[in-house]
C-alpha cells in the first residue's frame, strides 16, 4: 500500500516536471505560429494577444507570394524572393547532403571493412566540424571570389559538403558496422566487384540508415547561417538569409511577416526531425551511443 502510494506520487511529480518543461519548450513555437496568423494591429499590442483574432492568412500571402491586395502598404516587402530562396535552399541543402551521404557512406564502408582511416584519423576528421566556421569564412570568401564561386550555388554546396562529411561518415559507419560480413563475402566469392558489392548489397541493406543520415544532415545544411550570409550575396540566397533581411528594415518590426516566413522555414525541418527522431541520438553521438 505505502509502496504503491509512493509510486503514484513519483508519477505525479514526473508528469508535473515534464509538463512544465514541455510548456517552456513549446511556448515559443506556439507564439511564432500564432503571430503568423495575426493581423498587423496585434503584432505588439498591449496586453498581448495570445491567439490571433480573427486569424488571417495575409502574412503568408504577402511574404510568400507577394500578394499586393493583402499588403497593408507600410509593411509590404513584396516580390517573390522567398519562393526563389526556397528553391535555392532545397537545391543547395539537397545536393550538398546527397553528396555528403554518398561519398560518406562509401568512405564509411572502407573504414568499417578495410580501415582505410585509422581511428585517430576518424577523430581528426571531426575537426572539420568542430572548428568554428567563423575562423575560415573571410579567407574563404576571398578565395571563392578569385575562383568565381562567390554568390554561386556550387561554392556553398562545396563547403557544406566538406563540413558535413564527418557526420555522414560517422553516422553511416555505425549502420554499416551492424551489417553481417558474410553476405559480402558470399558476393565476393561469386565474383562481384567491390563497387558492385557496395552499391548493390551493402547500401541497400542500410537503406533506412541512409535515409536517416540524409535527413539528419539536411537539418544541418538547411539551417546553416554564417557561411550562407557571407558566401551568398544577391544572386543566391537561402531561406535563413532571406528571413534575416526582414530585420532592421526601415518599415520597423514586421513580426507577423517574419513569423509567416519563419513557420515556412521551420515546419519542414520539424517534420524531417520527427521522422528520424529515433536516429537523432546516433547522428549526434559519433558511435558513442548505441540502441
Amino acid at each position, binding site marked *: 500500500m505505502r509502496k504503491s502510494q509512493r509510486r503514484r506520487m513519483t508519477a505525479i511529480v514526473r508528469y508535473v516536471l515534464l509538463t512544465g518543461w514541455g510548456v517552456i519548450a513549446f511556448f515559443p513555437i506556439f507564439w511564432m505560429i500564432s503571430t503568423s496568423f495575426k493581423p498587423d494591429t496585434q503584432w505588439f499590442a498591449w496586453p498581448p494577444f495570445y491567439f490571433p483574432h480573427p486569424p488571417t492568412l495575409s502574412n503568408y500571402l504577402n511574404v510568400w507570394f507577394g500578394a499586393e491586395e493583402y499588403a497593408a502598404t507600410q509593411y509590404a516587402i513584396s516580390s517573390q524572393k522567398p519562393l526563389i530562396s526556397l528553391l535555392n535552399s532545397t537545391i543547395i541543402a539537397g545536393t550538398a547532403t546527397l553528396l555528403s551521404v554518398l561519398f560518406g557512406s562509401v568512405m564509411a564502408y572502407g573504414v568499417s571493412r578495410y580501415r582505410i582511416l585509422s581511428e585517430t584519423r576518424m577523430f581528426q576528421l571531426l575537426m572539420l566540424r568542430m572548428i568554428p566556421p567563423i575562423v575560415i569564412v573571410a579567407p574563404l570568401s576571398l578565395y571563392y571570389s578569385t575562383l568565381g564561386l562567390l554568390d554561386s550555388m556550387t561554392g556553398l554546396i562545396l563547403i557544406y559538403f566538406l563540413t558535413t562529411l564527418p557526420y555522414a561518415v560517422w553516422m553511416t559507419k555505425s549502420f554499416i558496422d551492424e551489417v553481417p560480413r558474410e553476405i559480402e563475402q558470399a558476393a565476393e566469392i561469386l565474383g562481384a566487384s567491390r563497387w558492385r558489392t557496395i552499391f548493390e548489397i551493402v547500401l541497400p541493406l542500410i537503406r533506412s540508415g541512409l535515409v536517416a543520415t540524409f535527413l539528419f544532415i539536411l537539418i544541418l545544411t538547411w539551417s546553416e547561417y554564417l557561411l550562407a550570409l557571407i558566401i551568398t550575396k544577391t544572386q543566391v540566397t537561402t531561406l535563413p538569409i532571406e528571413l534575416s533581411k526582414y530585420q532592421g528594415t526601415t518599415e520597423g518590426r514586421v513580426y507577423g511577416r517574419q513569423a509567416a516566413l519563419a513557420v515556412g522555414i521551420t515546419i519542414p525541418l520539424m517534420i524531417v526531425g520527427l521522422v528520424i527522431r529515433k536516429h537523432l*541520438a546516433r547522428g549526434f553521438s559519433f558511435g558513442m551511443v548505441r540502441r
Partner: protein
Amino acid sequence: MSVAAVPAASIPSQASPRERSRQRAIRRFRWSILVPLILLLAFVLLPVLFLQLYFSFHQWTVYLGSWWDAEYVGLDLFRDVLTDPRFGWAVVRSLAFATGSTIGCFVIGFALAYLMRRPFHGQAFYYTIFILPMLTVPVVVAYTAEMLLYQSGPINDLISRISGIDFKPMWLTDPNIALPTVMLLEIWNWAPFSFIILLAGLAAIPREPIEAAEILGASRWRIFWEVELPLLRPVIFLALVLRFLEAMAEFPKTWALLQGGPGTATETLPVYIFLTTWQYFEISKGAVMSYLVMLLMIVIVLFAIRLLRREKQSLDAMYAGQKAAG
C-alpha cells in the same frame, strides 16, 4: 573486433597470387576513396589556411588596392590583437557563454532524461515535444525571441500574471542581462541535444549491475551515484564536450538578435571577428583573431578528442564484454 576488420592482412608473407591480387584490389579501393578527399582538402581548405596566414602578417583592408600588394608588417598585427581589451573581453564572454549554456543544457537534459528513462504512458508525446526546439532554425529562434522578449511582450506579461508582481526586465536592451538572455536561448535551443544523447545512454545501461546492487540492498541514491553514473560517464562526457564546442562557435542567434549589442554586452568571439572583418573591414586583424581562435579551439578539440577516444574505448570494452556474456 579490430582484427576482424583487416581480413587477411595478418598473413602477409606466404600469400598466394590470388591473395596478392586481392590485397592490390583493396589498396586500389582505398586510394580511390582517399584521393578525392585529399584533393578536396588540398583545393579548398589549404588555400584558405594559406590566405589566412598571409593576412596575419600583411596589413590589408579592402581600401588598400589588391590584396597581393599588401604591406608586410611582421608580428605587429598579433601585438595589436593581443593588446586589444575588446578581444580579451570577447574571449571572456565566449568562455562564460559556453560554460554557462553547457551546464544549463546538461542539467536540464539530464533531469529530463532521468525522468524519462523508463517507459511510461505518454513518453513518445513528451519526447516529440522536447526535441522540437532543436529542430528550430537558429535564426528563427533569434527572431521569435525578439517577438517574445520585448519589454511589454508576452513573456513579461505571462510572468507578471502568474506571479502577481509587475515583472518587467529589459531582456534585450539591458547590458547586464543581454548575455544571460542569449545564454537562455542557447539552452532552450540545445537542451534537447543533451536530452536525447543522455536518454539513449541511460537506455543502454545494462540492467544486471543495477539489479545486483538492489539485491545487495543498496539505496536508490547509492545506486545512482555508484552504479548508474559511472556507467554513464562516457555519454555525459560527450554531451558536455560537444555542447561546449558548439557554444563556443555560436553565431546565428547572437548576431541576428543583438549584433553584439547593447554596447558590447553580447560581443562573443565569433561576433567580434565578424564585426572586425565585415563592418570595420580590417581583414588582417580579423585574420589574426581567427588564427588565435583557431589555435585555441584546436587545443581544446585535441584535448576533447583524446578524452572522447579514451571514453569510447572503455565503452567499446563494456559492450564487447556484454556481448560475450550474453
